[in-house]
């Protein structure tokens, strides 16, 4: 996702002279191409995230289109008030790019995990939040940035995410929720690059004769409330999966819609527990320990769709 971001940014940078790239001293060698093309529009702000956001706001106020780049927690929670006041309240159209959303920086420890970014940023009016699920969608987000009417946050993984949409004929529209896989046995809704775990889980479920639909949401703010309202109208099984804690995330947002609809007999949300890990772990291990690897997702959905007592009755019948 990171390479896709820089590749697409390079395209935009060459054609749109408003684009300025600011980094909090991260992305070694990744922005060399930009610098070669126009060094005046590439600014290493140093390790000064709060200052960088304000600086970007000022640039935007003169008509430029700044992208600010750092590791997720540093460019979100570290400078949250600058995002709120300088970007959202003062309406400065800046794209905040957080690399390493979720557990992407696993072994680097909790200082580098981006598992509360969406929740914190979701408190802020006007901010658009993009959680692309594969490198191709990252490119679509960067292209969409050229016509922004509000500031935006782009949540990247690192560089190992598979191209989920490469095999699809149709390019997904990032502005709308999309049906990634059709199914007749309820639905799993997800957001971000954990989509590939969800698809693996769906394969596993299919082997057990359960075929949930899979929906991904890439534009998380503004939240597609109406789509979810229609989705839960038939009161079928609905499970959410996100690489984020519960607060302010996908599951809570959907739970609210489900609760207000009066449906939700069969609803479950999978999230990261709000806690600090006790030791050093890589992303796969952290996902497994959080119940968010493909196996855990499949097991959770099986229990939701076919509760144990019902499964027993089926056998007895």
């Amino acid at each position: 996702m990171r390479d896709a971001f820089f590749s697409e940014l390079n395209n935009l940078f060459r054609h749109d002279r408003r684009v300025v790239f600011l980094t909090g001293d991260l992305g070694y060698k990744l922005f060399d191409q930009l610098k070669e093309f126009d060094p005046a529009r590439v600014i290493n702000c140093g390790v000064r995230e709060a200052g960088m956001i304000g600086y970007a706001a000022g640039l935007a106020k003169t008509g430029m289109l700044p992208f600010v780049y750092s590791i997720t927690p540093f460019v979100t929670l570290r400078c949250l008030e600058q995002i709120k006041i300088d970007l959202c309240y003062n309406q400065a159209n800046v794209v905040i790019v957080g690399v390493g959303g979720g557990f992407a920086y696993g072994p680097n420890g909790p200082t580098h995990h981006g598992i509360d970014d969406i929740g914190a940023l979701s408190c802020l009016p006007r901010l658009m939040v993009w959680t692309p699920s594969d490198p191709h969608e990252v490119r679509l987000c960067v292209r969409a940035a050229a016509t922004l009417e509000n500031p935006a946050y782009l949540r990247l993984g690192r560089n190992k995410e598979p191209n989920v949409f490469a095999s699809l004929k149709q390019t997904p529209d990032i502005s709308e929720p999309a049906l990634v896989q059709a199914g007749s046995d309820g639905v799993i809704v997800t957001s971000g690059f954990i989509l590939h775990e969800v698809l693996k889980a769906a394969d596993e479920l299919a082997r057990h004769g359960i075929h949930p639909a899979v929906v991904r949401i890439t534009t998380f703010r503004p939240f597609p409330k109406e789509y979810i309202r229609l989705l839960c109208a038939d009161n079928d099984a609905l499970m959410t999966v996100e690489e984020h804690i519960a607060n302010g995330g996908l599951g809570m947002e959907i739970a609210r819609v489900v609760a207000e609809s009066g449906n939700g007999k069969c609803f479950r949300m999978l999230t990261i527990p709000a806690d600090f890990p006790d030791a050093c772990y890589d992303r796969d291990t952290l996902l497994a320990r959080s119940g968010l690897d493909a196996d855990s997702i499949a097991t959770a959905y099986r229990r939701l769709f076919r509760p144990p007592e019902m499964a027993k009755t089926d056998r007895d019948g």
Partner: protein
Amino acid sequence: MNNPLTVAASINLLLQELRRDIIRMAAHSGHVGVALSCVDIVAALYTGVLNCTPATVNHPERDRFILSKGHGCMALYAVLAHRGFIDRALLDTYGQNGSVLAEHPLAGKVSGVECATGSLGHGLAIGAGMAQGLKLQGTGSRVYVLLGDGECNEGSVWEAAALARAGRLDNLVAIIDGNGLQACGKYDEISPGSMLADSWKSFGWDVSEADGHNYQELVTVLGHSSNNGVPRVILCNTVKGKGIDFMERDLEWHYRPVKGDDRDKAFRRLNGA
């Protein structure tokens, strides 16, 4: 033509008039001492320095002013009204329900207010980004940012100071309203041993000092332009509550609305009694 004595007299009248406006607004809120300490600086900017008028308030090549110490906004509102950016009658709505003149400047509501401020330590980085954007676009416009000395407690001020120096932003001028009093004590007591002039120098800025209540000196020093790639800071010596003797250097007037006998007394002082 302009007789210097007449000009000086009319400037004094203007500064008195602005102070009357501030006292009127201050019936509804605190921060009167803050507004009185920075009003001469804001007046000097808008009447003698800034290339920005109501007619050019949205022009891309206008000079910009950011009141980073947003709680001094009564001074800004009074000056904006005097210069015709906003209707003078608006001043009477200050701090009232439904008014666009809040106790810290709102975003996008008041002609002449470049951005909302109120949380300290935001304005300089925004101003620096603006100065950078103006340079990228090849305009000669300048950006002025007014900060409090207490505001320089904020770490983000120093992030912005370093960014501006790295960006060689000689079109950026920071102005410090150095009244020496913060919200709950003296600057020197809260940050003992901290010398602001030395701090700015150590960040590579061009540092000058000025009497923050001397109009002519302010116009001269603020209007000075340079193209040496170094941002400038003007440390202004000011008095919190300046112009109304019983408010001067008294922390009480950081908070107290000006009502009743205080208000009458303040107006009498401004009328020379």
